Structures are given as structure tokens and as C-alpha cells.
């Protein structure tokens, strides 16, 4: 893996969903790292190589997505990483909370196709078509 290649971290407790996203993004030559819990995600972020984009679910075992986001933004080393909240709860209150904590974007998983997920990621990473 080239260090210039973009790196994505997907924090998702459903392995099938993250595998599907990874498979799709693999087509587009975008590698995806995967964390199942909030704690694992925070552990991952301690690495030298920081991800270029984080897809973050809200409902997670242990620390939830909001907690993870809060810590990402509190940490000098990670506070500038774009975070897309990738949830199945699209209530206004969730959106408002995510925005207040500094989420870059808020999407409801089920409303997107895999193609749209891929486009969204590319758009964030500023990779053309």
C-alpha cells in the first residue's frame, strides 16, 4: 500500500455492511480499515498513519459514535479528519447533535446505494470520477 493512497476508517458494528462497503471501494482502489467498536476506532487513531476519512456509525457497542466523534475532535492530531456520520437513525435531534460535535456530513445508510456511498467517499477525498 502506497502511503500516498487514501486511507478510510469505517467504524461499523455490522461486519457485513463494512465488508460490502470495503468490497465496493476496493473496486475504486480505496482501501478501507475497519473498526467494530468505538474503543477499537480510538485505538486505531493512535497509529502514526491517520485515516483521510472516517465513516462513523452512531450505534456502537461501548463508546457510541457521538463519544468517538467528541474524542476525535478533542484530539489535536485527529481534529481535522473529515467524519461522515453513517447511521440508520436520521432523526433531527441526531443530526443536530452530530453537527454540534463537528461532523462533516450526516447520511442515512439505507437511503444510499453502494454506488452513492462510493461517490460520497470520492467526493470527500476529492478524487475525480
Amino acid at each position, binding site marked *: 500500500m502506497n502511503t500516498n493512497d487514501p486511507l478510510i476508517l469505517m467504524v461499523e458494528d455490522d461486519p457485513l455492511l463494512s465488508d460490502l462497503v470495503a468490497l465496493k471501494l476496493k473496486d475504486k482502489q480505496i482501501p478501507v480499515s475497519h473498526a467494530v467498536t468505538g474503543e477499537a476506532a480510538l485505538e486505531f487513531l493512535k497509529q502514526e498513519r491517520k485515516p483521510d476519512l472516517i465513516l462513523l456509525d452512531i450505534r456502537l457497542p461501548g463508546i457510541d459514535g457521538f463519544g468517538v466523534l467528541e474524542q476525535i475532535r478533542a484530539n489535536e492530531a485527529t481534529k481535522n479528519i473529515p467524519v461522515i456520520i453513517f447511521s*440508520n437513525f436520521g432523526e433531527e435531534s441526531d443530526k443536530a447533535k452530530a453537527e454540534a460535535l463537528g461532523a462533516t456530513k450526516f447520511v442515512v445508510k*439505507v437511503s444510499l446505494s*453502494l*454506488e452513492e456511498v462510493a461517490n460520497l467517499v470520492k467526493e470527500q477525498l476529492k478524487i475525480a470520477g
Partner: protein
Amino acid sequence: MNPTVKNRSVLSLRNIFIFNVICITAAAVYIIFSFFDRVPFDKPIYTAVLLFLIILNIGSYAYLWRQKDSLSLSSQIMLTVWFWIVIWFWIFSAPFFLAVMNIDSLQLRWSAFTFIWEVPILGGSVVIICYYLFRPLQRFLDQKKEDFSEEEAAKLYRLSIRYPLYVGWILFSASVFGYFIGALQEYFFAAMSNTEMIKNILAGFVTFTFVSLICYVSAEYLIEPVRTRLAELTDEKDRQRTRLSVRMIFIFGLIVAGALLMMQLAVINSLQAIIRGGLVQNIEQDVARNSWESSAIKNFAQFSQVNRSNVTQNDFSEESRAYLMSHSSGVIHDLSNEPKLIGFFTDRNTQSKSVAVLYLDSFYNQVWSTLPATLFGALFVLFAGVGLVMVATRALTRSVKVLIEGIHALQDDPGAAIPRLGSNDEIEELSVALSYFVRQSQRADQAKNDFIAVASHQLRTPLAAMKWTLELLTQDAKEGMQKEILERGTSAVKNMENIAEGLLLSVRVMNGLSDNHLKEVPFSPLLDQAIKLVTPLAEKKSIDFTTSVSENLPTIMMDEEHMLWANQNLLDNAIKYTLSGGKVSLSAIQEGDHIKVSVTDSGIGISPEDQAHMFEKFFRAQKAVETSPDGSGLGLSIVKAIIEAHGGQIDFVSKLGEGTTFTYTLPINASISKYDKIKLS
């Protein structure tokens, strides 16, 4: 011919009526003959005549009532009113009259005659008026429900509320009139004394207030089934409710008046008896002392001494003379029909029986002079009584009114609470019980909404997994059978997603618009956004999609997400149910203080049978299912809920095979507070 049918026709309403008329006329003729001393007439004969007529009438009524169901409403009312008139005037009023009145034979004949002619003539007029009064309602019963518009039904419903009261009032007026005529007859032809006249009129008042009341209640009872039928056709708001307080005041007023009049009657009667007794005693004592001139009674009565054996034909009628011979005291009438009080005594000097006669006119004047005070007292008691009843009734109905308002508020806003009454009575108990059930139902409703919301959320993760899996598989699948099946699977998953999303949205809309979602949103850009979202779909089906949105539509206070969804859904449907190459158009204009949006398509249209159900949850028209199998049937119900939550209205016109136009209007200036109240049931 069937013999039973023939038999029945002999006892028809008409024949029974004729038979009754003949019997009553015969009784009246008998009394007329008695005036000329052609036939005997006294209290026992009168009682027998009354008894005969009562049995005849009750028998006829009972027979006809058995076939009640085959009788028209008008006939039922007519029969019942007649029945009560007979019962009250012949069973109660006539014997009551005989019991309390001091009348001689001539007066008895006249009063009997009055009772016999007045009841059929006036009562007959009343029942005929009632018969015609109820004809409009009868026509309603005779015709099919469908022939009546809601407006006509509402009008008839209002009539059905008023008619029983009319029956009461007509009867009341007729009785007052009848008693007036009767009193004139007694006064002019039978020389009824003034005190007896007052008693007669008071007894009359008691009778006809009660007969009117009982006829009113009977008419209410008979009309109830018709009213229920009418109520089914009438919108609840158009119904005029019978006011509990009006009824109570009416009934209590009658009771107070009745009690008052009975009291009057008793007072006057006993006054008469006391004075008469006292006077006779005085006469006897004074005459015994042989000191007529010094008598106290001289102050208010003229008297003369007549030797019992010398009672002449010139002074008294045959009847009075017979009375004088056999009684020791009483009231009689002389030949000029002047009432006189008589008392007998044995003259101490001559030892012969003598009669003292007092002319009562001056004494009656004394009674008359107390009349203003009596009337004043009576009126005071009447008004005070009715006033107290009104206060009591208002106290009662006020709580009921608060309760009714609370229930109405609940119809507009299912989240509202039943107000606390604080009246500390049975009605408050009722309100507490009602509050309990309302809260239970609100909780159940909330639990249902929460359940749907959670279930729909939970479905999202597996749905996303299925959707994405199918997407990846389809992407790599070979053209042909495999790909087609995968695409059909994708479509099924998409449908499931729509259902889950629809349920979630409907729960959100049902929970009401919350303030923090409401903001001022310019309407034109919102529509542009919806147009943009559906344009690819229209292009894919090569549908001629035209839009005409006024540029400067005003901003509207709204839940933007919901409103966008509603517009998108209307357009989506129009495109979905229009075949390739068809036309879909959207127009939005401002009309006064409303925005009017129409979505027209040249699609499959909606059959007349399906049109009534279009806004029902999960309803899908037959044609729609054939054209596009993957629909949830939730969309339009939610669209309607959203538009109505914003104070608007939605409707459609459609012709099967030609197309449909959905049109909704939204008020521009609806205030936020109005939104708070509008929630969905």
C-alpha cells in the same frame, strides 16, 4: 280472500276512529237531552259515561298500539297524543273537577257537556295538527336514505329536535283555549260562582301543564329512532343538541307551577269550607240568641229568615228546595242563580224549623280583595322557584359543558388532556374516569408509534445489507435470467424500504409538527427541489414533464422535510402511474391568501369505486397494483396528513384511463400556534 285480512280491515285505524266518534257524539247528545229533563243526569251517570268512553279509548289505543310497527310515525304520534289527552282529561281532570267543585245539578250538566265536547274537538284538532307536523319526517322514513342530502338531513334533524316541544306547546295552547271557552260556558249558562271559577281554572292549569309535558316526553320517545337515523346522515357539527338545561328548566318550571297551583286550590277550598262552617255556626248561635241585628255576620252578609215550610217556588228552584229539606247547611243557588249560603236552625220561641240564607256576594268580595296579594305571592314563588332551578341547572350544566369542550379539544388534538373540573361531584368523577381512559389511549397510541419507529429503524440495517449485497451481485452478474432475477429482488427490497420509511414518516407526522422543525421556507425553491428530484424518473420513462411555478410564491411556515416529501410523493405517483410517453404537469400559483398546487397526469386514472379510499392507509387501487406492484399504499395518507397538519386541504379529480389531478391548497398566514393544535388522528 283471506279472512284474517278482511277481519283486520274492519278494525282499521279509520273504522276505530269512526266508532269512537259515534260513541262520543252519543254521550254528548245524551247530556244535551238531560238539559231538557228528557233523561236523568247525576254524578253516577256522568261517572258511568266517562268510564265507558275511557275504556273505549284505551281499548282502541291498546289494539292499535299492538300494530305499532305497521303504523306511520305521524299516526303513532297522533294516537299517543290522543291517548294522553283522554287519560288526563277524562280519568284525572273530570273526576278531580267533581271532587273539588261545589256544583249543583245544572252546573254538573254543563261541565259534563264541556268535557265531552272539548276533548274530542280540541284534542282532535291537536292530533290532526301533530299528524301534519310530522309529515316531513314521515317522508324521510318512506324514502331511501340516499335521496337526502346531508344538508336536508341536517335540517330534518333540527326539526326532529323541535317537534316534540311543538307538540307540548300546541297541546298547552289548545287546553288553555278550551278551558277558557269552558269557563265562559260555566259562567254564563250555569252561573258558576267566581270562587268556583278560580278553582276550575287553577285545576285546568295543573291538568294541561301535565298533559303537555307527558305528550312532549312521549313524542321524544317516538321520534328517537328517526333522529338516530338522521344523525347517521348528518355531520356531527351540524347537529343541534337538545340542551339539558332547557329541558330541566322546562320540567322543573312545570313542576313548580303545578305544585303552586295545587296549593292554591287547596288553600281556596279550605278557606271556603272554614268560612262556610264559621258562618253557619254564627247564624245558628245568633238566631238562637234571637239577636239577628247584633250579629257580627251582619258586617259582611245580608241574610233573611225563611221558614223551612215556607220555602217558596219563587225563591228557589225545585232542586234547591229539595236540598233545603234534607240538608242542614250548604251552598245553593236561587232562581236567579245567585249563590247563597244556608243554615237551618230551630227557632227557640216558635220551635219551628227555619232557614237562614246568606247572600254571599259581599263575602266573595272579601275573597277577591285578597287576590292581588295571592297572585303576587304566587308569581314570587314561581319566579323564585324557576330562578333557583336555573341556578342549580347552570351549576350542573357548566361542568358538563367544560367536559364537552374538553372532549372537542381532544378531537382536534389527540394529545390534549381532559380539564379538571374541581366541582367535587359525580360529573367530576366522570371527568376523572374519562381522563384515565384518554391517558390510557394516548399512551397506547404513543406506544404504537414508538414501536413502529423502533421497528422501522431496526429494519434499516438488514435492509441496507440486503440492498448493497444485491447491488454488488447485480453489478457483476451476467446479462440474462440471473441479472433479471437479481433486479427483481432489488426492486422487492426497494419496496420494503419504502414501506419502512413510509411507516416511520407517518409516525413522525402523527406525533405532530414540533416547533423546532418549523421555519419560514420560500415555496418556489422547495417545489424546484422536488421537481429536480423526480425529473430523472420522468426522463427515464420519456414522460413530457412540464412545470409552471410562479416565481415569487411567498414563504410559508412549515416542516421543510415533510413538505418536500409530500410534493415529491405527488410528483412521483403521477410519473409512476403514467405510461411511457404520457404527460405530467405541475402548476403552483398564489390565490388570495392561499397557495394552490396541482399535479396533473395523463395516467391510468382511478376508478370511481376506488376514489373514496384513496387517502386510506395501505389502500392501493386495483389499477395501481397492476401498473406498479411495488407500492406501500402509505404515500397518499401521509401526504394528506402533512398538508392538513399545515392547515391545508387536498383533493383530487380523476377519470379511469384518462388521468388524475391532485390539488392542494395551503394557507399563507397560518400562525405557528395554529400548527401546535393541528395534529393527526
